[in-house]
């Protein structure tokens, strides 16, 4: 009974970080999606220069640990623009995730048979129109499984934004473990929350995958 009460107290304390974790994850995923799709388009359909830009972005950002990117964005770039830790952390995480999403979408774009682009051009569509209404809808569907994987990774990487002072689930667990000196209880509760969040996210993504499956 005592154990249960402790667990409930711990959980309710850590739960205050739940919305922060969800907020950081959603914002980072959205930013990463925008970067990822844009950079993937540049890599596949851009001219020499744009291709190069997108490649350099994806290679360098994937080579640098996410925590370093968060530090650089918060302490270097945010010196000129005044960003809150929450925004800076989320944007940095999104910027990093964008590089991985670039690779996901590049693969998806390239998986659409090139003949479709030729055919679209032949019936008088512009390149942009063809990408928009022929390629993109298929590529997004093809990218979904890999993207779902990236989504769960970003959820877990959201623990890193604490270095700039964002009190998400993991930090709440640290705080309560420092107070009660019961790390197993604190981190066990955090584990439980991450597990639940990941399961929910996976269910949603699977539903979207089924709903928008290509009828070949």
């Amino acid at each position, binding site marked *: 009974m005592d154990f249960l009460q402790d667990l409930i107290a711990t959980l309710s304390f850590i739960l205050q970080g739940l919305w922060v974790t969800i907020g950081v994850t959603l914002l980072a995923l959205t930013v990463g999606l925008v970067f990822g799709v844009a950079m993937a388009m540049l890599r596949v359909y851009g001219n020499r220069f744009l291709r190069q830009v997108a490649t350099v972005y994806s290679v360098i950002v994937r080579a640098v640990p996410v925590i370093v990117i968060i530090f650089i964005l918060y302490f270097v770039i945010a010196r000129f623009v005044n960003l809150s830790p929450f925004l800076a952390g989320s944007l940095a995480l999104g910027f990093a995730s964008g590089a991985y999403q670039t690779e996901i979408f590049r693969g998806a774009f390239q998986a659409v048979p090139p003949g479709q682009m030729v055919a679209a051009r032949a019936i008088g569509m512009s390149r942009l129109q063809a990408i928009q209404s022929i390629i993109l809808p298929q590529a997004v569907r093809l990218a979904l499984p890999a993207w779902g994987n990236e989504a769960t990774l970003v959820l877990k990487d959201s623990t890193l934004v604490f270095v700039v002072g964002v009190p998400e689930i993991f*930090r709440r667990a640290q705080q309560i473990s420092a107070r009660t000196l019961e790390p197993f209880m604190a981190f066990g509760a955090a584990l439980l929350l991450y597990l639940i969040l990941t399961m929910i996210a996976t269910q949603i993504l699977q539903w979207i995958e089924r709903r928008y499956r290509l009828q070949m």
Partner: protein
Amino acid sequence: MKKQVVAYLLLVVALLALSACTTVQPTGQSADAPAEGGLLAEIQAAGKLVVGTSADYAPYESIDADGNFVGFDMDLIRAVGEKLGVEVEIQDMPFDSLIASVQEGKIDAVIAAMQATAERDQQVDFTIPYRMTKDAFVGAGDSTLVIEKPEDAAGISIGAQTGTVQEGWIQTALVDTGLTAADQVFSYERADQAALDVANGRIQLLLMDAEPSIALADETGLKILLITELTAEGGKSIAIPDGASDLKAELDRIIQELLDDGTVQQIQEANGLP
């Protein structure tokens, strides 16, 4: 292909140069931020003092079950804010991020049981100490070690919190002098993690601030072997941006006032500090 390699190398160099700016720049950057008299006025104009801390260090700073910042430092900084006539906003972050945050102007001040070491003093400015400190050597509950002076710790496996003055002392007094091998020294993100390793017998000693060690030893069944003043030369101070002389003068005055009128003493007792 060659061109591409060159382009990558250039980019990496550019990035390194950019990050180098941040570490070398504090003196240049303090000129545009607080130096020409702005910070104190800015704080008063905003009506808000933004203070960074690492809230995992009871009884100095921790978070209670309702999510409030509590502890000696927290009560003290609120008393300072009251004297300043501004609201105090507390920002929790890792201890390692505090100096960088105050340097970059993300926060106005740091109160985190922090000592004004020479290295830190090059990066930021410190107020006068608000509390002199002692350190404790902590061992397992059944430890038979006899530590009568700090040097008795020579050659014994020892742990400390990363980036603390205690870790610095171990390095200069024990490792650099050859008394203790470098692989006998263990660095922990937090003191309570080190305490667990002492309890489990992974390390024999833990060197940390004396006051929190009393509660920690009590709760984890550890034994305090020695309380000493070996790193007490600095005492605990509030860190502020380099060159913020107006803020330093005002904070020094307020701290002295709080020391003189017994407020600090009162806050110490309320938080169970000797």
